[in-house]
């Protein structure tokens, strides 16, 4: 552990528990508490990865899980974030984008192709006929990591949480905000992406004893819940925030949110700024304060702010040789105090980092100010270059929340200018850099957020300290004639690539991003968006003051797909007799959210044979189908009949009690949208059905229309209240009569009748139903009694056969009944569907009536007809087209082989000129052959 320092107070590691992991064959030693990257850094392994495009060696960059250098395959699981993933003893770690390992990556020759791979190369080269072959080759080369198809599916739980104040970020301002809000009585959720609280406060002068006291207060506070290793991935409407933990996704609803998200340190852009050993100053601080690891033995610091000098002092205090502090600014004021003996130069411009063995940095070459005499170019030998030249706000969530950020030239950073209701910002994201400012800002935000959460109005303005010191260099970009000044490490984008984008005309942020792929890698531009925008604006003679930052869509940081997949929450409705169906061997299908038996399996019989047997049973004896899935609606009140007259196309106000009438429901355009049977059970009481899939929407529409009409009636959606069975077939009456006190004789209970009585001892509503068979009884009973009644009906005669949805489709087709939505479409009016008889145009008003007048004037555009297929040698299917005069003239909407007739019959929507009975339809089958069908009268099957 060549880079591990002696114990540092507050370090995150447990030195009593050593561990070892293997990185591409080399052993690396660390301690419990180390992350994977920390173990590699402590062991002097500098090359962690190869870059995406040129396969250049890469090392630690942010050490904050913000860059994509630290992506590893760990024990076979790809794309693990080594900066934050805890090291496990014995883990096997390797880089994700190499051919043969980081040390001897066989793909590193790609960099020699760089001159031939200009920006936008893919867009220009790979289109047209050669795209497919190139795509295959590039795909085999590109991508990070490989997925094992054998990986087990590990469901990741999702959780919902609620709080008064959500504080994102637990640095000095976030901790202060959480404590202040909680003290004011708010329930606070404090989240931080790091494993421990404290943030950058640990190296920004927060004394250990003060920090320890804050930690103790937070953990003891009954109103504060803390969630570490948790990042806020996206902000959604009304303070709804996605929180991602390693093994859980939490959707939290807050009354107010404090963004104490801090800043992301930005690199200086100079030649070879991507070498292993060139890292941000805050990365060095994380290595040092959290893991007691030296970033190098002899370091150069590129500085443009006070933070760079604080780093120099910290490193020197821990025995690291600081070769030089090289300041990009003309003056360093008093920042260099206490660094006697260290070379501190100002007005420096970096020229290049120089690579040594293993491709890591061995020296930094810079241009110093003209002092008249010695050469201005100086080379400083070093094994690490630490960049402390500026910061960008971690403000993407703020932008998602609707905040506007403006650029403060004094500070050199974007800060919030206008915050939406319930949104507060504190700390460095708001431009507050010095420790007391950060804590004061946090307390103010916490108090304001708690007040807002209590319902107190929010003050409109954002109050910021106005006396900023400059912490970010306005333009730390140093192009080199030989290039390799990387702006985006994910995508290997250099300064010249962005300038080329501008020259090609892609000169707005959004266009440049897409053309150059700037910020489109796994780190989503956390280190490249601001420098890239800066370069673009400078090239166009503009500045940040003229430009709004773009808002990235969620997620702010990559979220593992397993978090999003999680468990499914697909609801399936089951009828009261679901287990009876299962016991009978039901094959299930999903209809309108319900599970319904498609057919019942029979030993050694095909699906078609099973369905045919069910059809024959109904025609010959009696069958029973579960129709509990039908929408069932009750309407009560003096205006109930008048309401139905307005709602449905037919007339119901004159329906006699104890009778039913078919009803067709239109939309305002006069299109058939649903149908059902309406029964009048009392003067002020109707009970009616809708289609299975239409139930929810129809009920909702009834309520909407009566919210407008305000008629004196009320509605109950009884769909889930009642089980319903259609007991159909010639022997149904005889089988049912012994089970009921209702007189089922034709005289007492004729077709279109509705009765109430007992069936199998259960109060039931029974209506005569002719949908599948001339004689049939639809029996509606309370849900809880469904199984009792089903069992009684099934045992009522030895020949009773349960039938499923497929048999029902055949049976109703034989009887000539269309199904709304199958035999009609979004343009079919009732006349075209053959349902004109159910429309009463002489009523004063009904929905769709005004449109039907126009339809009647214009005439039908299509007509639903029955047909029989004479030639059965060609396989015809539903949706096959009807051809007339070389043009499409219709299509088949229903088709079935009728077991009763022993021939194939169907419905087709055809041009009216083809609708005459006896006419011939030319059907083009799926295989392209043409076959003739004859238009036939319906019903196909008469009174059985």
């Amino acid at each position, binding site marked *: 552990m060549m880079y591990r320092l002696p114990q540092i107070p507050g370090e995150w590691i447990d030195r009593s528990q050593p561990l070892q992991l293997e990185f591409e064959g080399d052993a690396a030693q660390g301690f419990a508490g180390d992350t994977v990257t920390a173990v590699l850094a402590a062991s002097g392994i500098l090359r962690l990865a190869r870059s995406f495009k040129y396969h250049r060696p890469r090392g630690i960059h942010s050490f904050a899980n913000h860059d994509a250098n630290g992506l590893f395959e760990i024990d076979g699981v790809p794309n693990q974030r080594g900066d934050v993933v805890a090291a496990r003893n014995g883990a096997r770690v390797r880089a994700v984008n190499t051919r043969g390992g980081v040390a001897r990556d066989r793909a590193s020759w790609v960099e020699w192709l760089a001159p031939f791979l200009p920006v936008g190369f893919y867009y220009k080269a790979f289109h047209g006929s050669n795209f497919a072959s190139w795509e295959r080759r590039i795909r085999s080369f590109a991508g990070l990591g490989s997925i094992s198809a054998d990986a087990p599916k590990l469901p990741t739980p999702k959780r919902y949480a609620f709080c008064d104040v959500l504080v994102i970020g637990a640095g000095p301002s976030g901790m202060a905000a959480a404590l202040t809000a909680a003290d004011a009585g708010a329930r606070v959720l404090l989240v931080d992406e790091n494993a421990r609280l404290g943030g950058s406060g640990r190296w920004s002068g927060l004394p250990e004893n003060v920090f320890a006291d804050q930690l103790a207060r937070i953990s003891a506070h009954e109103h504060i819940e803390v969630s570490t290793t948790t990042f806020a991935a996206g902000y959604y409407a*009304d303070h709804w925030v996605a929180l991602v933990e390693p093994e859980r996704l939490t959707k939290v609803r807050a009354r107010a949110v404090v963004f104490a998200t801090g800043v992301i340190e930005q690199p200086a852009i100079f030649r070879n700024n991507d070498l292993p050993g060139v890292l941000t100053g805050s990365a060095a601080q994380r290595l040092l304060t959290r893991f007691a690891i030296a970033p190098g033995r002899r370091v150069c610091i590129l500085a443009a702010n006070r933070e760079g000098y604080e780093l120099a002092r910290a490193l020197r205090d821990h025995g690291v040789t600081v070769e030089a502090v090289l300041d990009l600014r003309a003056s360093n004021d008093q920042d260099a105090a206490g660094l006697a003996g260290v070379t501190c130069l100002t007005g420096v411009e970096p020229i290049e980092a120089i690579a040594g063995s293993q491709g890591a940095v061995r020296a930094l070459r810079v241009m110093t100010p003209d002092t008249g005499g010695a050469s201005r170019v100086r080379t400083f030998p070093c094994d690490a270059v630490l960049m402390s030249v500026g910061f960008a706000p971690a403000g993407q969530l703020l932008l998602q929340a609707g905040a506007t950020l403006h650029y403060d030239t004094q500070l050199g950073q974007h800060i919030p200018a206008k915050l939406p209701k319930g949104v507060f910002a504190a700390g460095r994201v708001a431009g507050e850099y010095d420790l007391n400012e950060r804590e004061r800002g946090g307390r103010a935000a916490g108090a304001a957020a708690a007040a807002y959460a209590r319902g107190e109005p929010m003050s409109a303005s954002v109050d910021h300290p106005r006396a900023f010191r400059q912490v970010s260099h306005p333009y730390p970009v140093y192009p080199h004639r030989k290039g390799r000044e990387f702006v985006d490490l994910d995508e290997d984008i250099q300064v010249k690539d962005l300038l080329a984008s501008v020259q090609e005309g892609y000169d707005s942020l959004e266009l440049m991003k897409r053309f150059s792929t700037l910020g489109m890698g796994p780190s989503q531009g956390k280190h490249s968006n601001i420098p890239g925008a800066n370069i673009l604006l400078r090239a166009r003679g503009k500045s940040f003051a003229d430009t709004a930052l773009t808002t990235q869509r969620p997620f702010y940081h990559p979220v593992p797909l397993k978090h999003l997949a999680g468990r499914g929450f697909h609801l399936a409705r089951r009828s009261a007799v679901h287990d009876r169906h299962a016991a009978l061997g039901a094959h299930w299908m999903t209809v309108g959210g319900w599970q319904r038996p498609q057919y019942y399996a029979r030993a050694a019989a095909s699906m078609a044979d099973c369905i045919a047997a069910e059809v024959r049973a109904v025609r010959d004896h009696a069958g029973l189908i579960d129709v509990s899935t039908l929408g069932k609606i009750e309407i009560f009140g003096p205006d109930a009949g008048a309401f139905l007259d307005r709602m449905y196309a037919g007339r119901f106000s004159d329906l006699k009690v104890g009778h039913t009438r078919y009803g067709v429901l239109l939309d305002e355009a006069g299109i058939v949208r649903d149908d059902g049977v309406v029964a009048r059970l009392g003067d002020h009481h109707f009970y009616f059905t809708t289609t299975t899939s239409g139930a929810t929407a129809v009920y909702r529409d009834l309520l*909407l229309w009566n919210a407008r009409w*305000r008629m004196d009636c009320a*509605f109950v959606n009884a769909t889930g209240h009642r089980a319903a069975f259609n007991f159909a077939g010639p022997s149904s009456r005889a089988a049912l009569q012994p089970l009921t006190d209702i007189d089922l004789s034709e005289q007492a209970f004729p077709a279109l009748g509705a009765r109430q009585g007992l069936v199998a001892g259960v109060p039931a509503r029974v209506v005569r139903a002719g949908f599948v068979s001339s004689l049939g009884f639809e029996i509606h009973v309370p849900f809880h009694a469904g199984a009792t009644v089903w069992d009684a009906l099934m045992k009522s005669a030895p020949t009773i056969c349960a039938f499923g949805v497929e048999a029902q489709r055949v049976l109703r087709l034989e009887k000539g009944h269309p199904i709304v939505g199958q035999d009609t479409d979004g343009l079919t009016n009732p006349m075209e569907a053959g349902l004109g008889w159910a429309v009463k145009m002489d009523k004063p008003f009904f929905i769709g*009536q*005004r449109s039907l007048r126009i339809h009647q004037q214009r005439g039908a555009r299509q007509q639903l007809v029955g047909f029989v297929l004479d030639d059965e040698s060609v396989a015809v299917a539903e949706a096959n087209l009807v051809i007339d005069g070389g043009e499409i003239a219709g299509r088949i909407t229903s088709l079935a082989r009728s077991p009763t007739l022993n021939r194939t019959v169907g419905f087709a929507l055809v041009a009216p000129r083809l609708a005459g009975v006896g006419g011939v339809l030319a059907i083009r089958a799926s295989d392209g052959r043409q076959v003739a069908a004859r238009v036939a009268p319906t019903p196909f099957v008469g009174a059985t």
Partner: protein
Amino acid sequence: MKIIRCPLNGPRPLLEFVSAGEVRAVPDADCSDAEWTAYLYTRRSVPAVRREWWCHTPSGYWFVAERDTASDEILKTYDAAALAGSDT
């Protein structure tokens, strides 16, 4: 996810609501075909504060929401009785 304040049930998540679009008066039956067609197929999409029909689906309660379609902010919600025939 957005929160909508249902006049009957209080603040509830958007998931529990459906909208039926702007509150609009149905033209008289004796209007011209062109007027009727415009009613059926034309909607106002210019951003403005609009009165819209919203339904809290678990309770089946329709109400009126005034929503700024530019900012997606719901300014107020109230029972449809307040429309009192003016827009139905």
